[in-house]
């Protein structure tokens, strides 16, 4: 198992127990990659080895860019995402980022209720939203257990790869 970080920016010392807690979470949910912003700290954890083979859909390991757009793409092409890592106060949360480029939808159809709202308890397999691209609608699972504390995107809004979509207070 490899650990990168913590990348403290001064102030109070980083609580190592928090890191151990996150590592346990990663094992528990078989996550291969985890990034957490906690006050001044940004922690990025990665697991190696076969045990990550069946990790759920959170902080995915990306396949080779077999169909990447050509490098000569014009200015009109999609700008690459700038994953936000802004400081956030309050209880420690996990940011769930968009695993793809597309249009974000909060519900399965315009007249049905959203999959989740603030306060919803989620399991790793809970569908959080749908992202559409080229009329391919991809269900996005939570990948973690916890409670939705913040929704950072609006239904119908385009999202970039890596764009933060939800904050979840881990269970």
């Amino acid at each position, binding site marked *: 198992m490899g650990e990168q970080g913590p990348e403290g920016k001064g102030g109070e010392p980083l609580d190592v127990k928090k890191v151990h807690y996150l590592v346990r979470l990663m094992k528990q949910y078989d996550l*291969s990659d985890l990034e957490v912003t906690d006050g001044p700290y940004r922690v990025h954890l990665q697991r190696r080895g076969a045990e*990550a*083979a*069946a*990790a*759920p*859909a959170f902080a*995915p*390991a*990306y*396949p*080779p*860019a*077999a*169909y*990447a*757009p*050509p490098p*000569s*793409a*014009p*200015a*009109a*092409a*999609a*700008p*690459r*995402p700038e994953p936000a890592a802004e400081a956030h106060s309050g209880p420690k949360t996990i940011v769930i980022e968009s*695993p*793809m*480029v*597309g*249009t974000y*939808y909060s519900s399965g*159809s*315009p007249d049905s209720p959203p999959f989740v709202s603030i306060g919803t308890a989620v399991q790793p397999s809970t569908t959080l939203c749908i992202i*559409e*691209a*080229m*009329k*391919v*609608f*991809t*269900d*996005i*699972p939570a990948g973690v257990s916890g409670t939705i504390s913040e929704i950072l995107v609006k239904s119908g809004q*385009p999202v*970039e*790869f*890596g764009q933060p979509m939800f904050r979840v207070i881990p269970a």
Partner: protein
Amino acid sequence: MSEGRSRPTWVDASPPALNIPLLDRLRSADGPVPLGDLPGDPAAVVADIDALAAFGFAIDRPAAGGVAYRGPSPRLCPDQIEHELGTLRVGRRLAVWSRLGSTNDVAARAASSPANDGLVVMAEEQTSGRGRRGRSFVAPPGSSLLMSALLFPPAGLAPVGPDSAAGVAWLTVVGAVAVAELVSDRTGREARVKWPNDVRVEGRKVCGVLVERAIRALSADGAETAVVVGVGLNVNVSEADFPAELRGKATSLRMLAGRDFDRSDLARDLIRRLDRWYDAVLREGPAALSPAWRARCEHLGRLVRVVTPSGAVVGRLADVDLELGLALELDREPGPAAGIVRVPLDAVTALEPGG
């Protein structure tokens, strides 16, 4: 015999299969066929004809003139669809329902088992079909093809990540191209793919394709995803069946050809075409589909407005390609080569006609 008494449950668990070779023989005949010309024991042939008639096929019973096929069953016939299907994946399993919420939902529920790769779910009637966003048209029961195919494309062909939008576009195109070819072949009318997922004839929509994907697991090699390709094709639908707001905008095979179609026969044809294109992509990559997509693209050569997250580009659509994206000839920049702009598929949020 009373139900459940002295009859072992493992005998005749399913009704006897329909004699589809017999059906095909009758269908292909120009007129009545003398009973004696039909192969097999006459008593068994009569029983098979009775079974076909009981299912709903319009068959004139054995009489002096022989046996005559008069028309298809009003309901979809799984035996007829599966008979000598010959596909590699799509249609390996088939489930035909009379009434469902949505064939896509039922197919997606089967995604828990990889053994269901290629499962096709069909329904005579959908109560909450999609048209995911906006107007969804509810076809009269038994009038159309409502079909969803469950597929497990390899991770490299259905990526999750920065390139996912361009990487999965071919799944929509497989459905749209297969249907457009089917419609053209069966009606003799030019069917085209309207960006990105509708099939139209002379500007009227005859079919919509809706692809839904569930991420099942992620590994170092990429994401394991289950994909449902849903097709809703208007078949034996009349102008009057469409709601007023869709008249003039929607069409059906019946309206295009001036006759009714055997939906089981169409379903078999469509499953084979889906399978062939899907297999071509698995063997050769999405590029295998680009020529057919290009040939069917409604917008090619026309002035289009392409919307991207960072603004819109207006130009003449010079090319579509699943790997290279769109090529636009810019309207206001005459000059050698300078006018061609490439837009990757994952940058396209909308493509509309006009400037």
